[in-house]
């Protein structure tokens, strides 16, 4: 259990002549919480795709829990960005969670007793027991996102990847989802990679930051990376980081605008 949860060495992704990012080396211990920040198109989502085994590296290596990245590893959990499910989706909340557990399996779509107990357990963990029998299409965005969290936790992952999981959720659900993710990290020793536009909702949990911009990147603690001079250098234009009551406000022409909390 001494293998790091995540290890990248000299990793690079190029599309033709364009280098998205290069020379990324980072090692995440179990229980560590990494926030991945940067403007649109800087390569945050591609970073996740690499870790999911959906995008090949152009150079360098990527290992998850001591093994080269592999598509569909059950040790890697993934919470995708929220998108509203169709009203007429023929699934109840618990059926959606079941897909997270056994959706990749062929054969008769029969849910075993063991799986059923596991689904109940997951529904409890994310606080979705009350609407377990309801059609997913009528659930709110926050409720659907809790179910996606349950899907991601199904394999009890050692590495949890989150792609803007709080996007378009109200504060109440933001807090609940963040708490769920934090618990998986702290209580079960999973490492968390959290892609976001907005660091403030999770800032108290973040151990390190990976900031992508203009083909370059910086890794370090929040204090090391979220500073005016570091981000100005990264963006190659003046950026100002202001701390206000424990929240960070990033201002600059080339960042994606003002960060609100």
């Amino acid at each position, binding site marked *: 259990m001494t293998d790091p949860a995540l290890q990248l060495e000299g990793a690079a992704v190029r599309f033709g002549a364009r280098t998205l990012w290069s020379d990324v080396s980072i090692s995440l211990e179990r229980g560590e919480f990494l926030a991945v920040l940067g403007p649109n198109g800087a390569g945050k989502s591609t970073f996740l795709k690499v870790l*999911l085994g*959906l995008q090949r590296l152009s150079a360098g290596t990527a290992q998850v829990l001591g093994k080269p990245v592999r*598509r*569909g*590893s*059950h040790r*890697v959990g*993934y919470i*995708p960005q929220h998108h509203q*499910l*169709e009203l*007429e*989706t*023929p*699934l*109840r909340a618990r*059926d*959606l969670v079941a*897909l*997270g557990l*056994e*959706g*990749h*399996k*062929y*054969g*008769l*779509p029969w849910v075993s007793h063991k799986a059923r107990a596991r689904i109940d357990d997951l529904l409890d963990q994310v606080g979705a027991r009350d609407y377990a029998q309801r*059609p997913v*299409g*009528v659930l709110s965005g926050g409720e659907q996102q809790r179910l*996606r969290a349950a*899907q991601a936790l199904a394999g009890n992952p050692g590495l949890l990847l989150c792609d803007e999981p709080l996007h378009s959720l109200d504060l109440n659900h933001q807090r609940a989802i963040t708490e769920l993710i934090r618990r998986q990290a702290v209580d079960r020793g999973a490492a968390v990679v959290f892609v976001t536009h907005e660091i403030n909702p999770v800032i108290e949990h973040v151990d390190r930051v990976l900031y992508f911009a203009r083909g370059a990147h910086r890794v370090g603690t929040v204090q090391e990376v979220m500073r005016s001079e570091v981000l100005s250098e990264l963006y190659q234009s003046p950026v100002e980081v202001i701390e206000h009551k424990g929240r960070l406000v990033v201002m600059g022409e080339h960042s994606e605008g003002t960060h609100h909390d």
Partner: protein
Amino acid sequence: MIERFASSFSTENYWDLFQLVQNSVLTAAVLGLMGGIIGVFINLRRAGLVVHGIAEISFAGAALFLLMGLDVVLGSALGAVAAAALIGVLSIRDREVSAVTAVLMPFGMGLGILFLYLYQGRTANQFGLLTGQIVGVDDIQTRTLISVAVLISVIIIVIWRPLMFSSVDPQLAAARGVHVNLLTIVFMVLLGGAVAMSVQVVGALLVLALLVVPSAAALKVARRPLVVVLLSCGFALFSAVAGIMIAIMGTVPISPYITTISFLIYVVCLLVGRRQRARYSAVTAEAMN
């Protein structure tokens, strides 16, 4: 016109007639079950227009085989599967299935019309391709149709979970190791086969009535996966079998009966679904107060 319609009915010797169309009824029943199962995914993947496109292109295949003096059923089947696979491959990149279909469909229909023009035989054969010819199916055709329909249904059930996963959440399914693109192609080929079979019952123009309408109706009133499938199969089975059983009393073709019955089922489900939803919102509102 009404008189002509009414006088076309006769209940004399009904059961004798029924004996003659037993094959057709059995075929329609099995095709209905298949339509009910695959239809759930057609609706989920918003592929209704694709079904229509495949049906029309399969007509080109049938016309080509007619022209070459080969088996028309085989021609339509090959046309359907080829069209479906082509649409599947072309749509993987941009996910715009209906745009790809809309481009291929007129081309397929145009070819079909050309082949029929070149064909020197009787015109009745041409019309049968469009409106169905099930009353004429013989034992061997019945066996073929049923075997293929059962095979398609079984495959759909075996790939049910990954197919459902990649239809509902392709991004997450891919991340969990589901071969989303491969499943799209497999689904399209199965759909091609299903369309080719259904064309035999209701013809190229009305194939939606058997593959899309029953499950669309089921999805209006139910959300539990098993209930949706059972209802959808039941609706398809009922429209197909009842359509034939009414049709043999008169001289009107089978298609209008099947399409009308399935449409009526859809309307009823639409209304029931509205009431369900209204009641559901009332309950939710109450719970929140």
